[in-house]
């Protein structure tokens, strides 16, 4: 066990250099494809990182025991999962650290790390250090985010997004069951290995890899029958995490739908852009503004590579941040930045525009920013995009799956009806043409 050192000002337990050598860092697994790669970026930098793969009702139960029950569901799950892991006996708790993200925004999520520390104290683990994965909110001698690390990290996001995008567009139509997921696994292993070796993160490498990857996926034989297309948006954890959304994507697959989940890159761009918008709106530090602009430019370049690769092989390309942002003008102001902010609204509009007009808007019960950008914006979206067919679903430890699925089924029933209408109309058109 390493010496426990505390921050002089705040009394916070620090993650020291010694700990970096000796400790295993546990990370929550929000989006499996992405996080596997992100984890490996840390491994490349000499951290012993491990993703938590545990699921099951005990996790929420543990969360409920140690966290205020009215706190948002993602906090209950993430903290529950950490404590559950520490209590499992699987880890040497004196050689384990935890890592959690902290965006510093105005919603409750910035407080998860504090709630986690409170919970650790309650559970008797106050000696377990917690690392904040953030831009300079809490500093630790044994952990730092260097520019090269961030570039590799962003590389991981790019690959994760592209894999998710391709899998979603192919899997429902694949001729040989299981082929898509097998390829996803092959590629994510390959990419993860690349990142562990510290490769694959420069613009050129990314361009090349995206091309190969997308090409590989384009070779999977498919049978394109018309299916109901569903977009998923929402609070970021609930949107991606199977544990939080009761296997939403699997359920939609069972219902014979094609799913589109807007990627993490959009969210990353959004968070960077918030600082730019804040500067424009209220004034502030010019240097920070320039830095964020440069960062956003870089991210935009990567995005372009993804879009081009997708287009080259006739896939529906991912959303482009600048375009998505344009769509929300006149609906919600760019100042609405807490949580998923205006991006959530914008993604719904964009989904409606790109054929995924059936939308599940997921949120933890009582999610504050969602009152504004989710539920609060749907009326307006329906006004400007009458084709949008949106259902909002609340997730929390007590919300029964059957009610959630029932509501989604209602949305799907309407979606199917619209699809039939569309097909019938197309059929008629074809007949007309034939007659002519």
């Amino acid at each position, binding site marked *: 066990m390493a010496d426990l050192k505390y921050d002089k*000002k705040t*009394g916070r337990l620090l993650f020291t250099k010694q700990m970096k050598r000796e400790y295993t860092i546990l990370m929550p697994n929000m989006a499996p494809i992405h996080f596997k790669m992100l984890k490996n970026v840390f491994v490349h930098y000499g951290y012993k990182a491990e993703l938590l793969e545990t699921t099951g*009702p005990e996790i*929420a*139960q543990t969360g*409920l*025991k*140690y966290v*205020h*029950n*009215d*706190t*948002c569901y993602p906090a209950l799950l993430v903290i529950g999962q950490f404590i559950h892991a520490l209590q499992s006996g699987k880890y040497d708790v004196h050689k384990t650290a935890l890592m959690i993200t902290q965006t510093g925004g*105005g*919603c409750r999520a*910035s*407080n998860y790390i*504090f*709630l986690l520390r*409170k919970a650790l104290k*309650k559970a008797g683990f106050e000696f377990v250090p917690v690392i904040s994965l953030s831009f300079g909110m809490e500093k630790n001698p044994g952990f730092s985010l260097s520019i090269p690390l961030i570039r590799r990290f962003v590389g991981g996001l790019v690959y994760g997004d592209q894999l998710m995008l391709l899998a979603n567009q192919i899997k429902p139509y694949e001729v040989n069951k299981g082929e898509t997921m097998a390829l996803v696994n092959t590629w994510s292993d390959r990419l993860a290995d690349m990142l562990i070796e510290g490769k694959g993160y420069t613009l050129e490498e990314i361009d090349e890899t995206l091309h190969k990857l997308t090409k590989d996926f384009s070779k999977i034989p498919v049978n394109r029958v018309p299916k109901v297309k569903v977009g998923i948006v929402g609070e970021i954890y609930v949107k991606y995490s199977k544990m939080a959304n009761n296997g939403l994507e699997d359920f939609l697959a069972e219902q014979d739908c094609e799913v589109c989940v807007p990627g993490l890159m959009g969210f990353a761009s959004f968070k960077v852009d918030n600082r730019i918008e804040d500067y424009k*709106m*209220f*004034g*502030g530090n010019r240097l920070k503004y320039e830095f964020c602009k440069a960062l956003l430019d870089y991210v935009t370049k990567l995005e372009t590579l993804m879009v081009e690769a997708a287009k080259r092989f006739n896939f529906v390309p991912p959303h482009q941040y600048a375009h998505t942002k344009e769509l929300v003008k006149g609906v*919600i*102001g760019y*100042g*609405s*930045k*807490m*949580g998923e902010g205006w991006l959530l609204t914008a993604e719904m509009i964009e989904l409606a525009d790109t054929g995924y007009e059936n939308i599940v808007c997921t949120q933890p*019960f*009582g999610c*504050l*920013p969602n*009152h*504004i*950008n989710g*539920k*609060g*914006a749907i*009326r*307006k979206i*329906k006004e400007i995009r*009458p084709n949008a067919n949106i259902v*909002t679903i*609340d997730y929390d*430890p*007590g*919300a*029964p799956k*059957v*009610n959630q699925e*029932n*509501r989604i*089924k*209602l949305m799907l*029933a*309407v979606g199917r009806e619209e699809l039939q209408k569309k097909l019938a109309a197309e059929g008629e058109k074809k007949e007309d043409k034939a007659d002519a």
Partner: protein
Amino acid sequence: MRLGLDIGSTTIKCVVLDEDNKLIYSTYERHYSQITDKIAELLDRVRREIDGADKALVALSGSAGMGVAQDCGIDFVQEVYATRVAANTFIPGTDVVIELGGEDAKILFLTNGLEVRMNGTCAGGTGAFIDQMATLLNVPLEEMDDLAKQYEKTYTIASRCGVFAKTDIQPLLNQGARKSDIAESIFNAVVSQTVAGLAQGREIEGQIVYLGGPLTFMSELRNCFDRTLGTKGICPENSLYYVACGAALCAEQPIDFDAVIEAVKNYHGSGNFAFNQPLFISKGEYESFCLRHSKADVKQKELKGYKGRAYIGMDAGSTTVKGVVLNSDGEMLYSKYLPSKGNPVEIIKAFLEEVYAINPDLDVASSAVTGYGEDIIRNAFDVDYGIVETIAHFTAAKYFMPDVEFIIDIGGQDIKCFKIHNGAIDNIFLNEACSSGCGSFLQTFANALGYGIEEFSKLGLFAKRPVDLGSRCTVFMNSSVKQAQKDGATIEDISAGLSLSVVKNALYKVIRASSPDELGKKIVVQGGTFLNDAVLRAFEMEMGVEVVRPNIAGLMGAYGAALYSMKKSKGTGRSSLADAQALRDFVHEIKVTNCGLCNNNCRLTVNSFGGGRKFIAGNRCERPITKKAPATGMNMYEYKLRLLETYRPVEGLRGKLGIPMGLNMFELYPFWYRFFTELKFEVVHSPFSNRKLYQRGQQTIPSDTVCFPAKLMHGHVQTLIDEGIETIFYPCLSYNFDEHLGDNHYNCPVVAYYPEVIRNNMKDVKKVNFIKEYFGIHRPKDFPKKAYERLSFYFPDITLNEVRVAAKKAYEEQELYRAKVQAKGEEIIRKAEHEGKKIFVLAGRPYHIDPEINHGIDKLIAGFDVAIVSEDVVSSRVDRFHTGVLNQWTYHSRLYAAAKYVTTRKDMELIQLVSFGCGVDAITTDEVREILEEKNKIYTQIKIDEITNLGAVKIRIRSLLAAIDND
């Protein structure tokens, strides 16, 4: 021929349609959760009774049938979709369908853009809700409708969920309100819930059709809808069967009846559900458990012929009434435990009559009453003492365990827990209106499943796999139970699971404990719910400790009251309690009237008991009783309201500019007022909130779980528009002023961005110039330029220079406002110090001064002769310090600072006001509690919502005062 089944949460419907879609067979039955048996039975019956049914196309609908359908080879149709198909077929031209079911409420907009709405996970106002309310009123469901028709007045009842409504109705019953008025009020609550919760800004107009059980059977409920919507809807023939008919219409394939019936009968769901350890493994284990608990008992003596002095204690609880007669040794001469049946006065009268009948010469030395009905009973029967419940329970618990450390009482509707420190109540936990996992909750479930409560809870004792149901509210629980049943849980498993969930609710939601150490080792459990062995066992298992349950666990309040009266009377004197003669002359008349003495205009229930004795209920202050206005000099909340009124509109060249008076405007009004007045606008604000104002905007609220203060904004903006204001200013503010108390100075997301919601959901804002731009008041230097950029879009003639001057004045005005508040605060504190009064820091948000939001809690507390200051008065008295949470919201930083300051003063206590649905307060409450408790201060939290039951608030305040007095 087509066959449709509709499996709802409580009933099952089956129809057969002929080739012309004519209904040739229909049945509607309760299924008592025996879903599969019932489906099999119905299918078999229809096949035998209807010729050709075995060749019919079949489909099934209804949420409770989803899993069964899929696994047994019947096509499933989503029920709202089915309704839509049926409505379009049978009543073409329908614009809106309103359908209420057992647990669902739905609105379908069929024309002008199809939209379908279902109630979310947190929503009552359905059939099950009316069921529950009927039980509470103790009238058969069928009579509710007739009762409601005879209404004279209506009360406002929370429409969010059943648990809330219950807390509103119970006091009304206890105060003697007429059942017919309550029945009508319940119907109105259902309407309000449906309209506010589901319409979400879309107007309900055109041809309206009512469907589903409640709307079919209750014509008065339909009338309530008609009145609210200003229209006349129709309830068609076969209104119960629309979902089933829709399923039939969607049916596409015939089924093999034999195979399906067989499959349904053998259906066991997934068999997978989360479960806990059994409560008892063996009979022997149970017996030794019973033996251990039989030791804590009170000796029973004969009342008949008793010659000594007697002490009578009564507990008029929310759902039950308890009475005891003790001898001078504290032994039990007589006791009674009865359901209150909505009228505690009658029950107490009968109890006393019985006592006097058994022993006509009884020498009553003293008496005391406690519980919800304390005031009315005390007035009606001249009871000697009235004491707050917490003290009553503590007194009783001490009798069994003099060194008790923790008392937990789970009653019919309340959970009360208190920590005892140095022989005094140190900390009180009461359940909030939402987390009511109490006795009546178990009872409701038992009844719904067709059992009596005792029989039902016994079933769980030896359950092999008690279902893990979590610790959520009743509405969630209903669905969880059904899901578990579908997954193969037995009735035994469910019974045990429910007992466990009651315990978990108390431990994790109310007390928020994570280990037994937090409660101490010496625990007394009481309240009727703990007489249930399954609950008691679950508690001991969950906490890993052995506790004491007195054999009179259900009578502890009354027992404590009697002991209290014994102690107080010191064995001398005679009780003033009504004697046998007084009971014979007893009359009880109830009149409902409006107070009219101030603008609250409370609805009063006046009870007269003959001999000029009167009891008034429903009042928020003492004014209707004393006819005097409450003193306002020592109430900061009152002062702030008055101060806001001093910012009077000044006519200006640029015309009127309206500001909605809600959320952060309660504090920032001086700033914007001065800013725009300087810019030559006539600045007006919407009036302070009231019920009517709220209802004006209610239909446009998109999220039913957002906090009430935010919901009120819709009414404020609507009012401004209705008053003809053409420019409305309601800015978005990500950041608030930086008061240097925390790490950042955000507003919470709702306060920051609610203008976006208003703009996107209120159709009338299109009629006006609605300015919801983003401003950065936290950066005074940049503010003028940025504000100028924003405003010049709307007012091209404004110059940057004008804005600069106005901004400077605005910041000064805000400073001045703050100084005034500070000065007044200091004056109150000095005066209180001088007079030796307690000072209560009523800590909340600026908008908690809104009387419609705080429901007069400030006045109620002031009525206890204490001084009230707000959090911002004392928050500036401490230096910045490190908190255990990220301290990033301006308003919330004040809470931590105020708490910190309060710990330094003996004469100050802090009460935190929390709005229901405030996510941020999930973080602040724990932190404020920690700050206070670290220095041995008592933490008191009051959760407020649309409607708040001041009775519960009173208990808290009185308990707090009693606890401080004990110091």
